[in-house]
C-alpha cells in the first residue's frame, strides 16, 4: 500500500508539470498582452516595451516557463503583474474559501443523491422513482448560475433577506486578513446558497449513477443471500448494497472535482466570494500569467490529490481491493 501511495505521489510531479506547461503555452497563445491590462489608459507602446522587459515577457515561452519553474521550486510563486501581490499569498487566502465550497457542495450533492437513488432503486418504476429521476434530469440540465440566481431571488430578495446575497464570513479562528468577519452562523448563511447552487447539478448526476448502480447491486446474489438469511431490509440496503454501489459513484465524485472547480468560478462570481475561482477568472481576463499559473498549479494539484484519495477509498468500500 505504501509503495502504491509513494508511486502515485511521484506520478503527481510530471502530471502537474505537464498541466502547468500546457496552461502556460495556452495562455501565451491567447490574444492579449498583460502590459495592456497593466497600463490601461496610460498605455503607450514605449511603456509597454518597458513593462514586457521588466516582467520578462519578451523572452521565449519556454524560457519564461523555466524561469517560473525555477522560482517555484524555491517557493516563489511569482507576483501578479497587475497588482504586484505575491501569488502564493493570494492563493493561500482564497483556497480555504473554495475548498469549503467544494466540500459542502459535494455534501449537498450526496445528501440529495444517496436517498434519492436508494428510493429510486428500491421503488423502481413507481411515482417515487419517476419523481427522483425527473428531478435528477432537471438538476443536470440547469446550469449553476441559473440555480444561483433563482436562490438569490428567493432567499435574498423574496424572503426579505433571509440569506445574504454575497460576500464571505470566515469560520471562527480562520481570519487571514486584518479586517474580516468571522462566525459560524455567518459562515453557514454565506455558504448555503453557493453550496446548493453548485451541488444540485452534481446531486442530479450522482443520483442517476447511484440509482443505476444500486439496481444492479440489489439484484446480485449476495444481496439475495442476505435477505434469505433474514436480515432486515435496512442493513441489507445500507450496509451491503449501498457500500458496493458507491464504488463507481466515488470514482465519478473524484472526477467531478474538476467540474466543481469550474463551477466554483461561476458560483463565486455570482455570490461575490473571495475564492480561488474568481482569482483564476480575473487572472485569465487580465492575462496575468503568474496568477494563472498559480491557479493552474493549485487546481491541478487538488484534482490529482483528490483522485488519489478516491482510489484509496476503494479499499474501504470493498476490502477485496488491494494495492500492491
Amino acid at each position: 500500500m505504501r509503495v502504491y501511495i509513494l508511486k502515485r505521489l511521484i506520478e503527481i510531479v510530471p502530471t502537474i508539470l505537464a498541466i502547468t506547461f500546457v496552461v502556460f503555452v495556452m495562455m501565451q497563445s491567447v490574444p492579449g498582452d498583460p502590459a495592456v491590462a497593466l497600463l490601461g489608459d496610460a498605455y503607450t507602446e514605449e511603456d509597454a516595451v518597458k513593462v514586457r522587459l521588466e516582467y520578462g515577457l519578451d523572452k521565449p515561452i519556454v524560457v519564461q516557463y523555466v524561469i517560473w519553474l525555477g522560482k517555484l521550486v524555491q517557493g516563489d510563486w511569482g507576483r501578479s503583474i497587475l497588482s504586484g501581490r505575491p501569488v502564493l499569498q493570494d492563493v493561500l487566502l482564497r483556497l480555504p474559501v473554495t475548498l469549503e465550497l467544494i466540500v459542502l457542495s459535494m455534501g449537498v450533492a450526496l445528501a440529495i443523491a444517496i436517498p434519492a437513488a436508494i428510493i429510486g432503486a428500491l421503488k423502481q418504476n413507481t411515482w417515487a422513482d419517476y419523481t427522483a429521476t425527473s428531478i435528477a434530469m432537471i438538476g443536470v440540465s440547469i446550469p449553476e448560475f441559473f440555480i444561483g440566481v433563482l436562490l438569490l431571488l428567493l432567499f435574498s430578495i423574496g424572503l426579505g433577506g433571509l440569506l445574504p446575497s454575497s460576500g464571505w464570513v470566515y469560520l471562527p479562528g480562520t481570519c487571514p486578513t486584518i479586517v474580516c468577519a468571522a462566525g459560524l452562523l455567518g459562515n453557514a448563511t454565506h455558504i448555503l446558497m453557493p453550496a446548493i447552487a453548485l451541488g444540485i447539478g452534481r446531486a442530479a448526476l450522482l443520483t442517476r449513477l447511484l440509482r443505476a448502480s444500486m439496481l444492479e447491486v440489489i439484484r446480485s446474489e449476495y444481496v439475495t443471500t442476505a435477505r434469505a438469511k433474514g436480515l432486515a431490509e435496512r442493513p441489507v440496503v445500507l450496509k451491503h448494497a449501498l457500500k458496493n454501489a458507491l464504488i463507481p459513484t466515488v470514482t465519478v465524485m473524484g472526477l467531478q472535482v474538476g467540474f466543481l472547480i469550474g463551477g466554483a468560478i461561476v458560483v463565486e462570481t455570482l455570490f461575490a466570494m473571495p475564492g480561488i475561482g474568481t482569482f483564476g477568472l480575473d487572472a485569465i481576463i487580465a492575462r496575468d500569467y503568474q496568477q494563472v499559473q498559480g491557479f493552474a498549479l493549485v487546481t491541478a494539484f487538488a484534482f490529482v490529490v483528490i483522485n488519489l484519495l478516491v482510489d484509496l477509498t476503494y479499499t474501504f468500500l470493498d476490502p477485496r481491493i488491494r494495492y500492491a
Partner: protein
Amino acid sequence: MRSRHRNTTLLLATIVLTLLLAAPPTTDAQTPKRGGTLRVSYGNEIANLDFHTAPGYEMMWVAMNIGCGLLDITPDGKFVPDAAESWSVSPDSLQYTFKLKKNVVFHDGTPVDAKAVKFSFDRLMDPATKSGMRSFYSAVQSVEAVDPLTVQVRMKQPYAFFLHMLAAYRTGLVLYSPAATEKFSLEDRKQGKPGAVVGCGPFKLVEWVKGSHLVMDRFDKYFKPGLPYLDRIVIRTIKDPITEMAAFKNGEIDFIASFSPEHVDTLKAQMPKAQIMTGKETTPMVAAMKVTVPKDGKPMSKERAPHPIFGDLRVRKAVGCYGMDRKEIVKIAFKGQATPWFAMAPPGTLESVDLNYLCPYDPAKAKAMLAEAGYGPQKPLTFDIIADTEKSVFNVIAAVIKEQMGRIGAVANIRVVDKVTWMNTALQDGPWDMYVEDLLSLLTIDSNGYLSNSTSTWSHPRHNDKKVDEYYDRYSKEMDTVKRKAIGKELLEYMADKMYWNNVSGSPFYMVAQPYVKNYTYNAEFEVHWYTVWLDK
C-alpha cells in the same frame, strides 16, 4: 352641550400643545452624525493602488479619498481649495502660484509642503513613472518650492485647462508622501502594503485584499475641520449586477459606485426610497471606425494607408452618420436613458456642442453614398464590429447597428471579445473595422486629446491628420473663453466632418445610495468623495 364640546376641544388642544413642547427635540435629520461604516460596492476589481499609474475608475475613486490634491472642482465647474489655500495665475498665464494650507499632513505625519507638492509633480512628469497623466503635464516647464508653503509652476505655454487637469483629469493631482514613496517600492504601493500608500486625504488605507475588500479608516488629522464623518469605508467588488442589486436591497451595502443603467427602472420600482444619482452624460459611447492601417503591415507603423473599408470618408459617413439611427439605439440599448449624440464630446462635457443636425438618420442617403463608394447588392459592404464583454450594453448596441446596417444593404458581423483582447486589438493597431465602447469620461474637450489626436496611442482609428492636433493645441492654449469656445466648436465640427470619431450617444452614469446615506455630492466619475457623507441610521 356646545360649550362642553368646545371645552373638550380646547382641553385636547392644550394637551397636544403641552406634549409637543415637553417632548424632547427630535434629532435633526440634517445634522451630520459622526461614526459608522459606509459599505460600498464596485462592479470591477481595483487594478492596483499606485495612484499615479494604475488604470481604472475603481482605483481613482479610492485615490480621491486616500489622497488629497491642490484643488477640487464642484459639479457646477467651480474650483475649490483642497490642500491649497489659494492660487493665482500670472497675466501671461505662464506662472501658477499655489499657497498651501498650514495644517495639512500626510497619513505618515509628514507635512504637505511645497517640496512634497513638487515631488508629486516631478514624479508624474517623469517618463520612468509611466503615468497616464504625463501627457497632460507637457505644458509644464518646471515646479519650484518658493518657500515651505508656496509652490510655483512655470509653464512652457499657456494651458487653459491646467486647473481642470489638476482637479479632475483622471484622479486629478494626488499628492504622495515623499518619505513613504521613497521608502517603499512600486510593487509595495501597487499591492497596498501597509504604510506604502500614504496620501493626505480624509481616509487612510487599512488593508486591500484583492478579490475580497478594501478598508479605509478615518484620518483623525485630516485638515478639513470635523471631517470626515464616517469612521470607516469598506469597499467590496460585486461583479454580477443582479447580486449587487440583491445586496443593496438586502441592506448589505450602502452605496453602489457605478450602477448599471439597464437596472435603474427595476431598482426604482423595487426600492422607491433609494437615492439614484445621475447627472450630465460625460462619457462618450463610441462606434469607432478605423481610418488607417499600417502600410507595411507592421502594427503601429508610422507609414499609413487608408483602411480598406473605412479609409473612404464616404463609407464612414454612410455607416456612421446617415446609416446610424442614434435615437433607436438609445431607445433599445439604454431604454431611452441616454442622449443620442454625434459630437465627439458628450453632452455633459464642458463647451461641447450639439452636432446631431449634421447627421440626420437618412438610410436612402447612406445607401446612395455606399453606391458612390462602389458598394451595392452585387458587392455588399461587409465589416466586423467588435463588442467586448465588459458591459452587456456594448453587445446590444452592436446588434442594433448590425440591424441598421442591414437596412442600408451592409453586412455587419459582430465579434464578441473580452476586454483585454479589445484593448489589445485597438491599442496595438490590430485588425479591426469598428468597435463599440464607452471611453474615458470627459470633463473637457481638451481631456479627449490623448484619445483623438494623431500621435496618441489611444487614438484607435489612427487618423494621421495633423490639423486635429493643431486644433487641440490652439484650443488648449487659448485663454479667452469666447475665442476658446469658438475653436472648440470648430474642432468638434472638423472631427464630425471627417468622421474621425463616431459617437452614438452619451453614456449615462448612475450611483445609488441607501436612503440613510446623507450628504453625498454627486459629481459624476470626476470627484467621488465620501468625507462629507454621514449615515442617518
